[in-house]
């Protein structure tokens, strides 16, 4: 199958970036302009894990989990601040060519243990008893709770999302409880990583929202510094989403960015606004604030909450 490997080596390198402190803007520029690189939507679609910038010690376990979710063959590359993007781009391309030609894959970083022991437990060895009991195949089943919109007692799914989730600002970890695709509870576990001021540039902020609206091409175009070519950009953002006094709503902020202005207002405790929102609305809301603004607002809210306790 060497012809298949030769063919594959010529393809764009599929990369999942895990973005650390200070590298958000640079990673975005890299994927918008460097040739031969493709930003994968999830690690399953990637062969290379790009670790950009410094990853704080708290985020290391998450990085290990992410690493192990890349299918074989896989390889990790670190991109430290200061290395020019042409150089990292060349390294990434070379690593992909190696992998395509059969270079060895990296082993798992975490031990091969299920989240809970289950083998041999229960009447059929599936790890559980009865209809809902035990930990069938290693995990318990979700249990019911009342919904905040219509009160139906359906299951609540609790998970921690982030810090390297593609739809959240890098570094932000949320503990979310979902009913269907609506968030019924949200807590901030870790703040977004600090980013340099250039990450707050209007064009980059607008591009992040465009990506969430499915306009990959237009977002790349904005990142490269041109006006986007797309229809229904404003209209696609629901009116009134993420409205704060003095900060307008998400649509206003996108408008401001599209016309090259920095948005002015800051939200108060944005995480509190998440419950009650559908998933897409929630991601749009978080993306409708510049990373720096969002980080400050989340940090302030955390300080506030710690005092009365």
């Amino acid at each position, binding site marked *: 199958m060497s012809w298949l490997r030769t063919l594959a080596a010529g*393809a764009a390198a599929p990369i999942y970036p895990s973005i650390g402190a200070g590298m958000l803007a640079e990673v975005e520029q890299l994927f918008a302009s460097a*040739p031969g690189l493709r930003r994968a*939507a999830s690690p399953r679609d990637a062969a290379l894990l790009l670790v950009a910038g410094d990853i704080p010690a708290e985020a290391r376990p998450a990085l290990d989990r992410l690493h192990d979710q890349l299918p074989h063959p896989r390889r990790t590359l670190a991109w430290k601040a200061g290395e020019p993007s042409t150089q990292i781009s060349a390294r990434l391309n070379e690593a992909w060519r190696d992998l395509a030609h059969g270079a060895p894959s990296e082993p798992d970083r975490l031990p091969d243990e299920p989240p809970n022991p289950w083998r041999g437990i229960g009447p059929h060895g599936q790890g559980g008893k009865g209809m809902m009991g035990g930990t069938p195949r290693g995990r318990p089943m979700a249990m019911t709770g009342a919904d905040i919109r219509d009160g139906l007692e359906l299951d609540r799914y609790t998970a921690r999302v982030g810090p390297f989730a593609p*739809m959240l600002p890098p570094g932000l970890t949320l503990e979310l409880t979902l009913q269907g695709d609506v968030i019924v509870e949200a807590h901030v576990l870790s703040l977004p990583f600090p980013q340099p001021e250039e990450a707050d540039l209007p064009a980059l902020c607008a591009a992040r929202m465009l990506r969430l609206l499915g306009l990959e091409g237009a977002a790349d175009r904005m990142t490269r510094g041109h006006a986007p070519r797309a229809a229904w*950009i404003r209209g696609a953002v*629901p009116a009134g989403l993420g409205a704060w006094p003095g900060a307008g709503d998400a649509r206003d902020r996108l408008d401001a960015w599209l016309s090259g202005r920095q948005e002015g207002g800051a939200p108060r405790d944005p995480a509190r606004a998440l419950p009650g929102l559908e998933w*897409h609305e929630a991601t749009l809301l978080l993306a409708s604030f510049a990373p720096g603004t969002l980080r400050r607002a989340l940090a302030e809210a955390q300080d506030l909450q710690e005092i009365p306790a």
Partner: protein
Amino acid sequence: MSVLLAAGVLVALALGIWLGAWFDRLAPALEGGRAAGPMAPLRDWAALLIRDQAETEAPDRMNRLLAPAWYLALAAIGLSVVPVAEGLALWHSPVGIVVWGSCEALIVITVFLHGWSPNAPFPLIGAYRYAAIGLPVMLPSMFVLIAAALPAESLSLIAIVDSQRDSWNLVRQPLGLPLFLVVGLTLTLRGPLDFAGGVDIAGGTSAEESGAGLFLWQVARLATLVAFSALAAAVFLGGPLGPLLPGPVWLALKTALVMALTVLAGRLIARTTPSRMLHVLWVWLLPLSFAHLAVSGMVAL
């Protein structure tokens, strides 16, 4: 004869899949990005095929394996009812547009299964979102195809093509193609109607897919693009009708045109939130297709 025709459909499908993938790689040029050469789709597929397919935690293994197969098969079945030349289709169904409608309904199920089977949160959200949008999108599709059946006095696609000898349905029923494009974007999981995917859910139903599974899914999406475009070409652009060139060539050209249109629309229109899109579908697009049917009825009388 039938076997030859079936082989022809298969070859056309394969070529169409490659063309669709290439269109996808050409489109960035419109936005000042890089256009890729004709080999690019093959390279991308090879890159998928040399990688492993990751198993998920306690998946519905059978459905995960077969969802791409059903998607692909439905595209091929849908394509089989499209007349390739005047009066000639692989499947001479007297109810061609109902067959296509069934394929649409089953495609929604297939996408749902694809998102359900890995037992992971983002694919699951994608699956349910898509079901919520995919179901009501079928209504405009039915209205549009029924409107096309009025002047033909038949549900057969051969008769519908035949009824366009004097003027194409594109002229008689100008709203038809734009409305049907909405259906096409939904069935091929593209752009403003790609509610099965999206960055906000890390690729949605495909978020846990890798290797050959992802390859098959992408190929099936493109196959559906080909089938949809061929059907749209037959219903609105007169299919194989045309001067000088033989019928199949005309059909191929018109199919390629509709494919390009769909790719463009998918790239240039923003995707709103699912709740809002549901509202748009029922409150705007459904009455619009109602009106479309009424006007087409008047014109046909």
